[in-house]
């Protein structure tokens, strides 16, 4: 029987959270080795486990995958979350890339200077409401289906849900002008594997706090 995938990252969301979401949505159980000290990171680097000396790293199917997108694509391919043909795949790709641009703002937020953090929340909200949400609202409205692409769950749905929920933590009414996205959020959250991930006791990580920020600084700052 294949070993479970093993995730190497600090004990927090960061760039690994999307991977946790997709594995969970695909119903794949996984283990985690949390990076807490510089020594642990050094050990991984010295042992040549990290292609570019960086994390995230996921041990899966005999490979040590690094780079978030590579990891996400591999899992999506393996678990039929990338559409049925190249055109669907490309649509999913574009939706995911747009969403990741937005998610990047959320990932970087805790590391901004405190004075800049509030300003950045406003920036995120604007980007979401003006540039990204209208696109997905229109897609859902136009085809009337439950999922963004090809009438089946894909990477695009999972990453968008992750991003919506993360934004709602900071801006609770961010979906107020987007009824189809509201419905989307409820429907995708109720998919059994995702519902389980959203319940307490799952591997979903809480919002970043001071401990997480300090851990990341200690790990990655020279």
């Amino acid at each position, binding site marked *: 029987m294949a070993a479970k995938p093993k995730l190497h990252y600090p004990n927090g969301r960061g760039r690994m959270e999307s991977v946790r979401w997709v594995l969970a949505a695909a119903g794949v159980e996984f283990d985690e080795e949390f990076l807490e000290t510089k020594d642990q990171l050094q050990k991984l680097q010295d042992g040549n486990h990290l*292609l*570019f*000396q*960086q994390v995230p790293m996921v041990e899966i*199917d005999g*490979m040590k*995958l*690094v*780079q*978030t*997108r*590579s990891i996400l*694509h*591999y899992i999506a*391919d*393996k678990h039929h979350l990338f559409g049925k043909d*190249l*055109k669907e*795949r*490309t649509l999913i*790709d*574009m939706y995911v*890339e*747009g969403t990741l641009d937005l998610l990047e703002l959320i990932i970087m937020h805790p590391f901004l200077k405190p004075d800049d953090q509030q300003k950045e929340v406003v920036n995120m909200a604007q980007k979401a409401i003006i*540039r*990204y949400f209208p*696109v997905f609202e229109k897609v859902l409205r136009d085809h009337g289906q439950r999922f963004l692409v090809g009438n089946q769950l894909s990477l695009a749905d999972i990453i968008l849900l992750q991003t919506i929920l993360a934004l709602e933590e900071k801006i609770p009414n961010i979906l107020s002008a987007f009824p189809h996205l509201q419905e989307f959020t409820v429907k995708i959250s109720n998919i059994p594997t995702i519902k389980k991930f959203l319940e307490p006791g799952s591997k979903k990580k809480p919002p970043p706090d001071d401990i997480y920020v300090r851990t990341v600084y200690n790990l990655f700052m020279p």
Partner: protein
Amino acid sequence: MAAKPMLHYFSGRGRMEPIRWLLAAAGVEFEETFIDTPEDFEKLRNDGSLMFPQVPVVEIDGMELVQSRPILNYNAAKHNLSGRDTKERALIDMYIEGVADVNEMILLLPISPPAEKDAKITLIKDRTANHYLPAFEKVLKSHGQDYLVGNRLSRADIQLVELIYYVEEIDPSLLTNFPLLKALKARISNLPTVKKFLQPGGARKPPVDEKILEKARKILKF
């Protein structure tokens, strides 16, 4: 016969250049509509059905693709430059994401505040010499083949060689300790399609200069 792909961008490298490299290497003739003024950009954004109001944009096979990665992914898949199975694709994905990380640093260098530029150049040199180039040299050494993955040309070779050219523009001595990478660069540069691209009159764009930068700044408003 299918129309040639149409690239929409300003007349400089920026985020379109890897796409030009890939299409050229794949032997695909393409056309370019250069965005010369802010009005040109407005027209593009208001005109068609752009998913997100940004460039690069590539019109191809009846689609208007945005976001560099989906554009690259689509063309690589179409021209069999993405590997033959999921494992090859995962390897290629990792390699090109590493290349993209360094490219991003180099891309943003001209617009860094002058006070930060020296530190940024040092960082690029350090990362390239100590993380990225050694990783790729090691890959080539490990299997002794002419190409990074699967003993045949893939987008990983094309995108890495493009990066090698940029690294050499910053500091040719960075390549000193990497004979296999130098050989890869020569081999890829000598492919008939790539040779044509690199010749005067080919679609390759020159290094960024103040004039190009100012134009881009005015048009893209950064």
